[in-house]
């Protein structure tokens, strides 16, 4: 299958290993992966701030470069939700509406793609650690992804998954929210970190690097031994 990988800016710049693992996994499964260099952002920051005209400038570029492929796999539930759920709204009643709807139909978050499109749950991975899973809100509530990442983790050798009480509670990132309301965002993150630490896990795993960036940022300041890691990196471990 011809798969276009959408690597959002923060994964590209700060967490390249996540994207690299995704390429390796998809290629190992026999798919042809392409990654358009001209796309860096989905436009969500401007969209969430209320500046939809400006968001469309970014989204137009994404529409231009994400054509002619069987599936667009997104390395973040949040950006995935933007492409799949919010693009049709952003272009509602506008000339490129049909294109936005067509793209939305091809968009998959990475773990959802593996399990529900490709039907793969065992990637032969091995990761000897105790982990707890954090559901990114956009992946969970906009895209309805809950079981897929857990199914994938359940097939990883030597890995123990322990659920935290607040698995489905927001980590407090929320994009520009984290910078505009840092005290609220931080307080929310503290609840998340405490819940994750309460499981005694070595790692907080998620399918969204943006949440993990926030949680790791807080854990670092707390001097916690708990670490964060993206699901794709676990699935790529041997």
């Amino acid at each position, binding site marked *: 299958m011809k798969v276009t990988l959408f690597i959002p800016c923060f994964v590209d710049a700060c967490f390249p290993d996540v994207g*690299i693992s995704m*390429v390796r996994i998809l290629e190992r499964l026999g798919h042809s992966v392409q990654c358009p260099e001209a796309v860096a952002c989905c436009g969500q920051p401007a969209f969430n701030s209320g500046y939809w005209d400006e968001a469309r400038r*970014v989204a137009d570029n994404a529409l231009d470069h994400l054509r002619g492929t069987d599936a667009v796999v997104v390395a973040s539930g949040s950006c995935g939700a933007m492409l799949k759920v919010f693009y049709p709204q952003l272009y509602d009643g506008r000339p490129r509406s049909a294109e936005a709807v067509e793209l939305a139909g091809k968009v998959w978050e990475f773990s959802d793609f593996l399990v529900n499109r490709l039907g793969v749950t065992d990637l032969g991975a091995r990761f000897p650690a105790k982990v707890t899973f954090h559901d990114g809100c956009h992946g969970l509530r906009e895209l309805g992804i809950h079981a897929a990442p857990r199914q994938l983790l359940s097939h990883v050798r030597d890995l123990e998954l322990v659920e935290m009480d607040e698995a489905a509670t927001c980590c407090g990132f929320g994009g520009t929210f984290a910078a505009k309301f840092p005290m609220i965002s931080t307080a929310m993150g503290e*609840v998340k970190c405490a819940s994750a630490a309460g499981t005694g896990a070595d790692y907080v795993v998620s399918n969204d690097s943006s949440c993990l960036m926030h949680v*790791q940022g807080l854990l*670092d300041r707390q001097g916690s031994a708990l670490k964060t890691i993206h699901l794709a990196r676990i699935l790529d471990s041997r």
Partner: protein
Amino acid sequence: MSTAAARFLDAAGSITRNLRHRGLIQTALRKYESARDRRKAAFHDWESARQAAAETKWEAINHLDEHLVSFADKLESRGTKVHWCGNGIEARDLIRTIIRDAGAKCVVKSKAMTAEEIHLNEALEKDGFEVVESDLGEFIVQLRKEPPYHIVFPAMHLTRDEISDLFEKELGSAPTREPEELTMIARRALRRKYVTADVGITGANFAIAETGMVSITENEGNARLTAALPRTMITLLGIEKVLPRMEDLALFLPMLATAGAGQAITGYNTLYSGPRQPGESDGPTEWHVVLLDNRRTELLADPEQRDALHCIRCGACLNVCPIFKNVGGHTYGTTYSGPVGSVITPHLRGLQDWKHLSGSSSLCGACTEACPVRIDLHHHLLQNRRNAASEKPSTLERLTWRLHAFLMNSPSLYHLAKECGRVFEPLRKATEGTVLDPVRSWTTTRTLPPVAPVSFKEWWRERR
């Protein structure tokens, strides 16, 4: 920034630093969540129940004109006086006149958020009437001269010790930590008032269009006493409280109890259909039903957010909201707090003054997931943000997003930005958290990952 926004930021700052306060609220709401989940499991299918409730409220709100007329006609046919008030001032003036005409001095009130919305107590007290809140939680916050903390649990921010101290100071009671004893202290103070009050004011949970009845739901029996003992009864309700049929209560009463308080059904559920009828021996001789618009019709005119009028004020969205759980109810500075408050307050009180409430959300969607009548709450926050920006855009922010688009759409500039990030990383690190740090709103409490030595795209290009 509006005054309301500045106050919000200030209050949010102080509550988020108050670990005791946050702990108190979070513990209480965790208990709520487990009780609610037990009750939800008693529904054959909670999701179908939500869908059915949403459809019933859709019908009610989209045919509001017909339902309201039917409701009023039925009430009037049994001798109830129905009043239509466009805004809070009209409603306050009307209620004041009714009380004055009744020759009343003391007014007893049962919990009504609509009365909070129009600041009824302050207005009546200014006129020299004694107003007594009969709901225990409302009574407590009234003694503290505070607005309710939560639309269902008005005093949830207080510990038993704090309530005991308050009663000791205000009512002269002996200190106690027992909830039963605290309730008895309030009851003794309140019972005297029921007997002497000339007017009782209640809110309403549902207005049944088909039969012209008001449904009031409560756990303490205080609303029944408020309605039954005084000669004159006043019921104040927003026009969105309508349900088309009596049988709709079969779904809405257990749903309200489950979503609102994790109960199977609320302790007391009463239907009122009119004042004392000929041959009846009790009940008020006069009943005034006051229907309040207060900009609800403007929300009704908005096809995108009209479903916000489905709200049954159960508080479920507050209870699951991680923002509410960390900033508390008073921080919002509104009658209706939490997600639904953030959605409707800009409509009820002005978009530009209250847009910060729609901004202060991570858009996690826990509220939408919890709402028993399926209001699309977190997406309405997004729409409020869009409406606020298109109505009155900030030049700086618009420019920022244009530059952002330009940067993101240009591979060479984007690459240059990453290079700059690498070059300036030592400088950024050295100034981290100081006024020179451009991202200090992040770095004050969190570390920021550096730009990787080889970015994904650089790796990709190299590989090819």
